[in-house]
């Protein structure tokens, strides 16, 4: 199940006026909670599978997959947010996202329990994140979107998937592991 929404949409969207750009979002579930993510950086959606775990990494790094010859790291969003991972089901997906890093762009896979649909959320329906209460680090939140009277958290992919931060966290993890043995 490879949805090739990626490129065409991206290129198309870039032609449109800046404001329009962020109006389309992919909604998805982690557990029973719905989140949204701007579709601009989404390259493709894959079925969960053939993942190689990388030892000595923090739990939210599931491992790496082979994406047509490139080795791409995979992050478990649920674990990143709440420290708890959910069971793999038939609906579990890996969404490939392109993130900006200090030295260019990199692809990262993100585990989602299921993806829902692509929706338009007009800018007027997006509120700033609450100071607290979302139970998620506020810098991970790009905004709160209103969809049919429901509120979804629109996540900030560059922050959640910051390569620098992930690399740092895994280093700390390693340092702590030293004591275990």
């Amino acid at each position, binding site marked *: 199940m490879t949805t090739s929404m990626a490129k065409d949409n991206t290129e198309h969207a870039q032609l449109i006026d800046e404001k329009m750009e962020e109006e389309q979002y992919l909604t998805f579930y982690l557990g029973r909670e719905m989140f949204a993510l701007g579709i601009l950086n989404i390259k493709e959606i894959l079925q969960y599978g*053939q993942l*190689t*775990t*990388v*030892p*000595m*990494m923090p739990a939210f*790094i599931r*491992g*790496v*997959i*082979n994406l047509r*010859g*490139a*080795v791409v*790291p995979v992050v478990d969003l649920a674990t990143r947010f709440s420290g708890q991972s959910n069971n793999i089901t038939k609906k579990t997906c890996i969404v490939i996202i392109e993130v900006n*890093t200090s030295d260019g762009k*990199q692809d990262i896979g993100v585990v989602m329990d299921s993806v829902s649909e692509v929706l338009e959320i007009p800018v007027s329906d997006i509120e700033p994140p609450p100071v607290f209460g979302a139970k998620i680090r506020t810098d991970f939140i790009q905004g709160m979107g209103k969809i049919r009277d429901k509120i979804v958290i629109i996540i900030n992919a560059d922050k959640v998937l910051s*390569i*620098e931060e*992930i*690399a740092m966290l*895994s*280093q700390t993890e*390693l340092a702590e592991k*030293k*004591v275990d*043995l």
Partner: protein
Amino acid sequence: MDLDPALQTFYVESREILEEVEDILLRLGQEDEASQKESLNAIFRAAHTIKGSAGLFKLQNIVIFTHVVESLLDQMRESEISIDDDIIALLLKCGDHIGELVTLVQQNNADLPPDLKESGEVLLAQLKQYSGVSVFEVKESIKNNNGKESNQKKSWHISLRFGCNVLREGMDPLSFVRYLETLGEIENIVTLDDALPRLVDFDPESCYLGLEIKFKTQVDKQSIEDAFKFIQEDSTITILSPGSRVSDYLKLIDEMPEENQRLGDVLVQCGSLTAAELAAAWPQPNIKVALNKQDRVRMPVVQETRSMRVDAGKLDEHINLVGELVIASAGAALRAQEMGDTTLNELSSILTRLVEEVRDSALHLRMIQVGPTFNKFQRIVHDMSKDLGKEIEMVISGADTDLDKTVIEKISDPLTHLIRNSVDHGIESPVEREEKNKPRKGKLYLSAYHDSGCVVIEVADDGNGLNRDRILSKAKEKGLVREDQKLMDKDIDNLIFEPGFSTADKVTNISGRGVGMDVVKRNIEELRGTIELDSRPGEGSTFRIRLPLTLAIIDGFLVNVENSSFVIPLEMVHECVELNGVNCKIDTDRNYVNLRGEILPFIRLRALFSTGGVAPKRENVVIVNYAGVKAGLVVDNLMGEFQTVIKPLGEIFSHVPGLGGSSILGNGEVALILDVPGLVNRVSSMENFSIQSAV
């Protein structure tokens, strides 16, 4: 349309020429008279080529400067000026200056920055002291078409048929005409339109022009040929020297595509042949020649090119694709095996073999000789020994050894460091050497050779060797070694690779600038290489660097723990045994085994990687050996040897010690490549940590 390609070629070629010149200059002092003469000729030709090409691109700064150098070289060639160390040093600097001028053009800087201008003037003044030729005279002479006495001028005939791509490549036939005008006098020129097609077939960006030129000059044939260096590959260039016989012209007429009669007329028009000469040669319209011509298939002359330039990026892309091909073919082979279809299996094994050949040849494309890199060090040694008042001869061997381009690029810095160290600290001053009954002149050996799938580069000197006492006291001072600790000589020597170690008592500006041998070691390990040191007090020391042939591919040994596959670099695998088999007993619950009486520490990958699950009944030990240290890795299953393309793991995993990269297996799964030295270091530091915290 872009003028760049031709200029790019100019940059690259000038650099290559300058490097060559540098090599020759560095050898010049030690040569006998006959070979000196030859070398000087070579240098003269090189300067001339640079001047000629620069003239083509109207790079006046380079033309003028090079011309002065050339005059000096000419006088040296005529033995008017003798060769000594100073003049060689001056010529070396001139070479550098020309290189800087080329760089300047490349950076699109039209104006000379003041410092460069000044250094150029200093050099010109020095040159003048030798040759008596000043810039002013040069400028004048360039202006006057190098106007020496016209009685030396002779008439040449130049026949040009430009290749169809010259315009596209940024070359304009006109610029050649104009360049010729700077070399001499164009007496007659005829522009030929014979190759111009009809309008329908005309491609406005192709070149169809031909030129017949009668050219009067005093320069030699080489200089005229050099003018056309950049187009010689696909253009037809014929240069007839003064005094060529009528038959030579007839041959030219015969070889050219135009009608003979027509070309004959053109040559008469040019003044290169007289009508009478032509009439005598062709009593009647020459039927035989004409027939011959018709018979001949009109085919452009196939030029034999021995090498071609390819963009390095394109090459990398190609090699990546071949890597994908290897993976895909492994996948196909696996599937074929599963299906058990004999024909399919046969086909797939043929395919696998072919893909392997393609991969080998692709990897070979990246291989270049270490020679040019080695030669670079000649200069460093020459300059440094001069500065330090030492006499050092550098001996290079195995310059034709091939190595991956990336490896060569990355090894250059560590090598520079080692060589600087040898010159600075290793080799003694002439006086000191004489006191020790050694020849005044020290020797520095730089050699490369193949050894069991690796390339070995050695930097050796016949200097003083390492001063173990000083190393030891320094190590104690820095807390790297305990006061009472007893160390073997080799261990003491290896202390210099420890981080934060620098042996020089006085910090000179040459070595000891804070970058220690630990950096050298790390750089080499990043290339998956190793470095070892062999020091004999009073006799000298040898640094031996072992490098993999290529970075893109690894010969690996595939193992399996729980559900994960790992690749261990094959060159580190010593042997494999069954845990608790006949040869390998666990004596205690400590982490070592008794391997045929030898005590072998081991690492349980299952525990280290916390894979979970239960260990199978039979576990296996892969015994690895790196830099003389043996260790065992306990794994579930051995899957066998396997050659694979290395994929980088990315920044996220860059801090993980023990992982060297990843690779994709035939079934599409990702396998992690173990970095054995990193793994062993990690485990030993973890143990030390827990022992210390237990105390």
